[in-house]
């Protein structure tokens, strides 16, 4: 009874679409050669963006986690299960980024479903791991553009497997994506080089930027640890404040998916300004323009983050 009204409303809302689709389908050649689009589901915005780049017109990408969502703590809605069940192929980031949800995906993959952690074929030696716990890799590798580009082959293979007719198309758009990412990586290196090496210090609320720091020569200080749950300890805060004063760091940064309280405290105590809000575990909303960049895309988000950092530290 509860769901009668909304379903009727939903159909009414979609009525123009349904009619349009009916009309369009009369005309030939308007859809991909073999008729239907492949349905791909993706977890975070960064994963969805890569899949869109490779998939192009042949793939319809359904992104589960919206802007500002912390993937460690994502709480699925009731219809997520149908979205995942309907998908021809599922992509997730992997390396425990998605917490328990990642376990479910791993089990689905083992049972032969088309479910792929896109980080699975990244060069293992390039992954960062805490010294005491080998194999528990840092999952935030999308901020090193050259490493995120290493996820492309997995996506190309997976899509070609789900849709063999599109293999050539996926390889072509995959190569184009690879070229764009290489250009973006070069852009980042040049942008970072605007700062002298001793000024490249990034203080943020959690350790999501270790790959970023390694790739573009920043010393990264995260106050909270990798996870977004652990609260910052008092000694962490005191140490960070001393460090900022000693190195005369001009600005520190808050993140869109983590509470800014700790960073604001550190800013007050150390005299460093809050240099802006960086994207970490989630991208912006589709079409959202910040600082002249479309932060709803991976490329725009990377450019926005780096130019914000460089601008504030100069």
């Amino acid at each position: 009874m509860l769901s009668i009204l909304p379903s009727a409303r939903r159909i009414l809302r979609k009525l123009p679409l349904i009619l349009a689709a009916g009309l369009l389908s009369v005309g030939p050649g308007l859809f991909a050669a073999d008729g239907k689009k492949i349905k791909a589901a993706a977890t975070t915005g960064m994963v969805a963006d890569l899949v869109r780049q490779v998939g192009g017109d042949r793939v319809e990408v359904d992104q589960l986690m919206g802007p500002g969502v912390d993937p460690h703590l994502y709480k699925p809605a009731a219809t997520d299960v149908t979205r995942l069940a309907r998908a021809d192929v599922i992509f997730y980031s992997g390396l425990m980024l998605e917490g328990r949800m990642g376990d479910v995906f791993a089990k689905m993959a083992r049972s032969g479903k088309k479910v792929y952690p896109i980080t699975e074929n990244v060069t293992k030696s390039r992954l960062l791991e805490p010294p005491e716990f080998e194999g528990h890799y840092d999952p935030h590798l999308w901020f090193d553009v050259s490493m995120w580009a290493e996820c492309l082959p997995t996506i190309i293979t997976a899509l070609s497997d789900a849709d063999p007719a599109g293999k050539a198309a996926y390889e072509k758009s995959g190569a184009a994506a690879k070229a764009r990412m290489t250009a973006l990586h070069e852009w980042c290196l040049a942008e970072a080089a605007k700062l002298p090496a001793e000024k490249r210090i990034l203080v943020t609320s959690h350790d999501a930027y270790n790959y970023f720091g390694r790739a573009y020569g920043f010393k990264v200080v995260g106050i909270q640890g990798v996870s977004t749950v652990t609260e910052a300890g008092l000694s962490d805060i005191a140490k960070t404040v001393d460090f900022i004063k000693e190195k005369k760091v001009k600005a520190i940064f808050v993140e869109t998916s983590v509470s800014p309280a700790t960073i604001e405290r550190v800013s007050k105590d150390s005299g460093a300004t809050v240099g802006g809000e960086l994207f970490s575990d989630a991208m912006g909303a589709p079409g959202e323009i910040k600082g002249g960049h479309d932060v709803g895309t991976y490329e725009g988000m990377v450019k926005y983050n780096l130019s914000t950092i460089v601008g504030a530290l100069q």
Partner: protein
Amino acid sequence: MIEPWAESGALYGWILAMGILVGVSCGLVGNYLLLRRMALVGDAISHSVLPGLVVAFMLTHSRNIPAMFAGALVAGLITVGLIEFIHKKSRVKPDAAICIAFTTLFALGVVMTSLIDKGGLHIDAECILYGEIAFVPLEPPVEWFGIAIGPQPVLLMAGVALAVVGLSVVFYKELLVSSFDPGLTTSLGFNAAALHYGLMAVLSVVVVSAFEAVGAVMVVAMLIIPGMTAAQLSSRLPVRHGLVVVHSGISSLAGLHLSVWLNCSTAGAMVVMGALLFVLAWLFSPSDGLVWRWRRRGSDGSGEEGTVASPGGKV
């Protein structure tokens, strides 16, 4: 009404089954917890599993489910043991004993986590132990003799539910007497302490299994709400057991529909529906519903503020 079923009946069927199984297992144990004034013990265990998770990780260097489950189970057993020990050996009341035990264990877990978190590692129950009921149908089905039976978490929870039902039938008399009158239990020749620890051990197994299957929100609520709803309607234990089963069925089905309608968290919606059933029972209970009391007060003018019903205890 049929929206969840028309297209993806099998998917939502497993979610519904899981909701009912968790509701029945937690609800039956909850009936005894209410009588023993230990309703919050589920909430306590949801916190005190943390040190167990950390120790299990340090021993196995792995965050996989079996290791975490074992750690959580041991921590749960230690929690209920500690609660009983504090309560028995001091003048601390059960509710305060629960608080002392779980806050201490949770704090211990936080200290341990922050020590190992220096290496940039991430351990917390939300992320590595708690399951999600919405994902139950995505788990690959278990096969017996080549026939797909169903998702593994549902089968495990069905085993737990069967065990709980079986134990409450076998030990019906003992649990009934000991829940009301530990003194009488001993004089009848039953071992009250053993019964209590046994019940608490079963509770730990149920709670940790259910955490792993559907997460904390639902488990903590379903230990209390079905039992309290049943307590509004009857003072007889067998009837309450039956009502708990009915409650699980209605709240799971209505909650599933609510969550599909609003596209929100399924576990949350099932709890909200369960709470709604409690409010209905509270208002319209044939024996002492709030509405009848208001009407009586309206007609004869005498208020009943003086009578404070003792929830769960009046049997």
